[in-house]
């Protein structure tokens, strides 16, 4: 399996996402997060948040617009018919609340062959309007060989 690695190190355009209260609600309910801190601004403020807070994994919602151009980049050149999402990790720092403007930048961290499969690893870094990091993600897609 011959892998094209020219895209390693490539950074993709930053993507801005404005976090909304109803979007947090929609995500929280789909996942079964029923604590009022995710749904009710009063309860969230009482718990010390600026506004309703997003469950940590809501980062996939505000990062998606940054990841798509990286994953579909022709220079990265993944074969989608043979691709699976193999692994995922997130490191969280500042909590994200309704009203936050989050900017996420994705990059291609590595493209390597192991056991006849292509491992495509992307990294994302998200910051809020004050420049504080909210999450750092590592996204691993695996493309099986012919």
């Amino acid at each position, binding site marked *: 399996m011959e892998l094209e690695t020219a895209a390693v190190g490539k950074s993709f355009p930053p993507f801005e996402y404005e976090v909304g209260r109803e979007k947090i609600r929609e995500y929280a*309910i789909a996942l079964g997060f029923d604590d009022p801190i995710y749904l009710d601004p009063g309860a969230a403020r009482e718990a010390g948040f600026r506004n309703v807070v997003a*469950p*940590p*994994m809501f980062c996939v919602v505000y990062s998606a617009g940054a990841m798509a151009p990286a994953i579909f980049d022709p220079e990265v050149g993944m074969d989608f018919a043979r691709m699976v*999402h193999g692994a995922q990790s997130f490191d969280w720092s500042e*909590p994200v609340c309704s009203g936050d403007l989050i900017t996420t930048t994705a990059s291609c961290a590595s493209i390597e062959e192991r056991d006849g499969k292509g491992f495509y690893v992307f990294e994302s870094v998200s910051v809020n309007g004050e420049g504080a990091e909210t999450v750092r993600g590592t996204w691993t897609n695996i493309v099986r060989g012919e």
Partner: protein
Amino acid sequence: MAAPAAEGDAIPGLTVTPDRYLPVRYAGASGDFNPIHVDQEFAKSVGLPGAILHGLYMMGLVSRAATDFADGDPRRLESLSVQFRGMGFPEEEISVTGRVTSADGDRVELDLVATQGDREVIRNSTATVRA
């Protein structure tokens, strides 16, 4: 955590049976409308048994088990890492279980797994929870 966590402790975990339309609601909530998750016919046309759950939905359930362990405080979930294995399906119970692998004054490390029947759908999952 009522008492300090100790290595080897099992965490409460959770069980969820996603209904038939959960992948549609998760698609709307997340923005991931890949037809393998929301279209039975399309999923079958590419060789799947039917529409499958989003991997990141299942990771979300694992994150909820870890957040529950942190007394429901999302600020205390510092990191979560998973490997996706096997496919998850709606209308079948998912069970997230875990145990404490290390604990000091500052952080608790958890090992987690999500299973459906006898299949592991997420494994080698580790979470770090701030004390």
